[in-house]
């Protein structure tokens, strides 16, 4: 599956992880071309429906990035994200998704290198998994 290029969605919180991405950019880290990053104010702003929607509408994987536990700009947002994430991850696994198609991770504003590492590892992992079993025909939305 080495030539498989997954489509990956990353949600990154404004205060830590997105700043971390910027930092990675300053250090000349090249974002893998298969990733699209969406900036959200807090990781807790990501609705589980958004993740499920992405995974059923043609994306291969979703990564949610927030501040490290205890460091959320809104004090407790990422703790909520963690709980919700665990429940969602279990549900997705129960329904037949591989356990790594959806992940949550923590990257601070200063961790440009960590951002690069987390994202690259994630991309590699998804490449190894291959396309999602609910992939759609790109142009019509119908199943191939």
């Amino acid at each position: 599956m080495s030539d498989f290029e997954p489509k990956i969605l990353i949600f990154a919180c404004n205060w830590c992880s997105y700043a971390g991405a910027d930092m990675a950019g300053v250090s000349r880290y090249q974002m893998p071309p298969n990733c699209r990053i969406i900036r959200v104010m807090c990781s807790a702003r990501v609705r589980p429906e958004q993740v499920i929607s992405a995974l059923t509408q043609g994306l291969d994987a979703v990564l949610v990035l927030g501040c490290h536990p205890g460091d959320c700009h809104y004090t407790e947002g990422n703790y909520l994200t963690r709980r919700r994430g665990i429940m969602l991850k279990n549900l997705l696994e129960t329904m037949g998704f591989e356990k790594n198609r959806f992940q949550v991770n923590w990257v601070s504003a200063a961790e440009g290198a960590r951002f690069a590492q987390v994202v690259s590892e994630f991309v590699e992992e998804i490449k190894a998994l291959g396309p999602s079993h609910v992939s759609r025909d790109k142009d019509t939305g119908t199943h191939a």
Partner: protein
Amino acid sequence: MFHAIRTPGRMRDQLKDMQTRLREIAAAFLERPDALFFIGWEMTPDEKETRPFFARNPRQAQRLVWNDLCHPNPASYLPRLRDREGMIGVAVKGCDARALRELIRANQIERKNLFVLGIPCTGLVDPNTGAIASRCAECQYPVDFDYDETLGPMETPALTVERSAPDLDAMSLQQRRAFWKQELDKCIRCDACRKICYGCYCPECIFEMSDPKWATNRGDLADKIFYHAVRAYHLAGRCVGCDECARACPMGVRLDLLNRSLRDHAKEMFSFDGAGITDEKPLLRTFSTEDPDPFFGGDE
């Protein structure tokens, strides 16, 4: 017109006794000038099952039944009646009482407008097989719930019931995938499972929104995964395990297994007791700094 299927004779008499008292209590309630109706159960026209019944006067209260087929959850009608002026009587068994507690906490109905009759349930039977319903394996009565009247001590019955198969956690990924493909192929997206649920009371459901349009309408596997994952997730930590959704499904989709797996995981990961048992905060509205962090590289 009482139809117990495999409930032993001694217990049947006891249930019949409770039914008599249920009717008396409902009739007395309906004598009150501010009483709107009393929601309980009546037999279906073929007398093989029960269904919800809204008794409006003492005479109609005589149609109410209590037996081991009283599956429907009368509390699930309360959110849509929240703006009615007057008192509503409602009969609740254990799982219904948990739903009711959740509804009151979520401000879907005001306790002061209700007359709550608690019924000690000894387990229901499946009208087709006669076996004890699998949900009763997980029965738990709410702790210290405030009933107006009860038909006996409101305690979790001691039942020996097997959990229904299959056990999804024991399956391989491929098996789970195949299982859900087979189940979701049957689903016709009628949404009965969502509309029967006590907890589906949002004024505008995500599946009905057109702007943004969350749910597509194609009805293919991906749409059904979206529907079922979101439906189950929205009930995470709120599902009381009444299995009404699975009972309502005309196609026999085993969506009860999704709810059950979420309940299991909540227990395993967060020691969450279950919805409506106590007044503790809802599962996903709270957290602990000690929550597990199973995502890779969580702490550095």
